[in-house]
């Protein structure tokens, strides 16, 4: 997950222009593409959950194996067993969508919690939290997940819990940085002087007004992370198992036909991964440039 250093600067929300007028065109293009991808994924997820597919993703058709994209009735061609690629790609979203949301939720909740503790309560918790975040950062994520898999044979939701926990350090350090920045600007001191209850200061003034955009950005990047994890695990054979499609295991099973020059069965899901992760990264970075006002090409 990406980390953006908080450079001291003016608080951008104070200017009156709406954000799309202040923004760079390139950033708007990034965000536009990202939103398009998000919309596509969400719509495909809904279509997949209501089973509104062009074809049955498990329907084997041995007369139409490895059809190229554009074959009549099969928009994106078929795989090595003649199963419809488009339907399988749509159903593949089921494998990461809800687990990914869970990972994001965990990372956001624990990350903001720890960040607020470290930033707002200061020294008392800071050392402990720094220790914890360094500890989590010491494990390569995939190795930690393999350890958890070896120990528990968990399903994807538990794995995503671990993914979420490994994303906690980034978010907590960002929230902490933001709070320290606000402290520097005497923002919190002013709040306390006004006699506001801590609850209002933390939830409304700090988190809602100043950390909102940061958390949205981290959520998009976290989703990209979760997709990468899920597809990697399915590729390695620990996630979704054949015949249920996931983009990862589609790449893996299609790769057996690579050496025969049949690229499509593994390239189609790989492109799906590529475009989705690209979209989420661009969305996150574009939003970061626009909302946090840090364009430095």
């Amino acid at each position: 997950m990406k980390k953006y250093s908080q450079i001291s600067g003016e608080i951008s929300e104070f200017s009156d222009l709406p954000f799309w007028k202040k923004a760079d065109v390139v950033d708007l293009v990034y965000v536009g593409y990202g939103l398009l991808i998000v919309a596509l994924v969400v719509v495909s997820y809904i279509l997949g959950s209501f089973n509104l597919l062009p074809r049955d993703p498990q329907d084997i058709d041995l007369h139409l194996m490895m059809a190229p994209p554009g074959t009549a009735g099969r928009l994106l061609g078929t795989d090595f067993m003649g199963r419809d690629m488009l339907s399988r790609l749509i159903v593949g979203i089921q494998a990461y969508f809800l687990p990914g949301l869970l990972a994001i939720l965990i990372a956001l909740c624990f990350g903001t919690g720890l960040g607020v503790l470290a930033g707002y309560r200061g020294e008392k918790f800071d050392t402990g939290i720094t220790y914890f975040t360094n500890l989590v950062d010491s494990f390569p994520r995939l190795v930690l997940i393999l350890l958890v898999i070896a120990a528990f044979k968990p399903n994807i939701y538990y794995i995503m819990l671990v993914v979420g926990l490994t994303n906690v350090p980034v978010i907590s350090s960002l929230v902490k940085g933001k709070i320290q920045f606000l402290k520097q600007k005497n923002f919190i001191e002013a709040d306390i002087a006004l006699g506001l209850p801590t609850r209002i200061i933390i939830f409304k003034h700090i988190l809602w007004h100043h950390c909102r955009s940061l958390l949205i950005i981290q959520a998009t990047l976290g989703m990209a992370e979760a997709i990468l994890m899920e597809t990697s695990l399915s590729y390695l054979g620990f996630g979704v198992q054949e015949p249920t499609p996931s983009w990862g295991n589609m790449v893996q099973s299609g790769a057996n036909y690579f050496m025969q020059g049949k690229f499509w069965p593994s390239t189609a899901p790989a492109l799906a991964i590529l475009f989705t992760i690209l979209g989420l990264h661009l969305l996150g970075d574009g939003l970061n440039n626009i909302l946090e006002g840090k364009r430095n090409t």
Partner: protein
Amino acid sequence: MKLSAIRPIALVLSRELMITVLLLLGVSFVVFIILFASPGDPFSVLLEGQLSTAEAKTGVREAMGVPRSWYIQYLTWLAGMLSGNFGTSIRMGLPVLPEVLRVGFSTLILTIGSLMITLLIAVPIALYSAVRGTNKLSWPLTMSSYVISALPVFWFGYIVIYFFTHELGLFPIAFGFSTAGQKYRWLYQLLPIFVLGVGNGTISEVIRFLRQEMGRVMAEDYIRSARAKGASIWKHAFKEGLLIPVTEIIASKIPFILGGAVIVEQVFNWPGMGRMAWQAAQDRDYPVIMGIAILAAVFVRLGSLFQSVVYVAVNPRASKE
């Protein structure tokens, strides 16, 4: 180097070493907790299939002197590890430590090699755009770095293998290290390094970070003065603008690259830690995966130790903080 230059480094080194030791203790504790909480602790896995009744198991437990309380178990386990006893692999029946160290070395080569590749790509681009600012080339460069970062590395690996075996005909189709006696064997070993270096998904982030840091340093007053008096800007900006950011990014990306190594080793049959971790997770071979997790954490901590040493060597003031 003068003694006065070494003193702050030694100070920081001792402090950082202490932190490293504390963190590694924490790592061992987390690993222990995961294994302890798992259904079937390491001990009962050892006995799996050998004894049928629960009474027999507890009997053996007591006969072998395995303590019941978790903290004594942890301390015995830790003491064993410190004396080099990481346990015995359930699948291979070999002691874990030598095995893990053997594969750890080849993963180390893979990791360091791919870090070099990443930097070889990222540093020139970042330097170029930090010095020249926005121009015609910067948009295509940024865009392609985004695309490369989003590339799924497993698929990229297959593409590269296909290209080299089929289009160039350099290797036999058979995968793996059965290439003994092949003319291009060395090249085959370079491929995974190249693939992981390009496809580890951090390139765009590395470029952005380096560019931002370099841009910040280039805007500093002392660079302006150096420029004004005609001194070498490169010499003035090197430490602060290149050396520190590069070591920082190396230290923070080691975990990512080790994670990516699991996949790339799988694609290329590279006999490394990642492949062994995969196999161990497949077989639920606790001692092996545990040893690998700890060794990987040691790599990560050594990386950040290295970073703080470089930081203090360049900037002795930091030791007083």
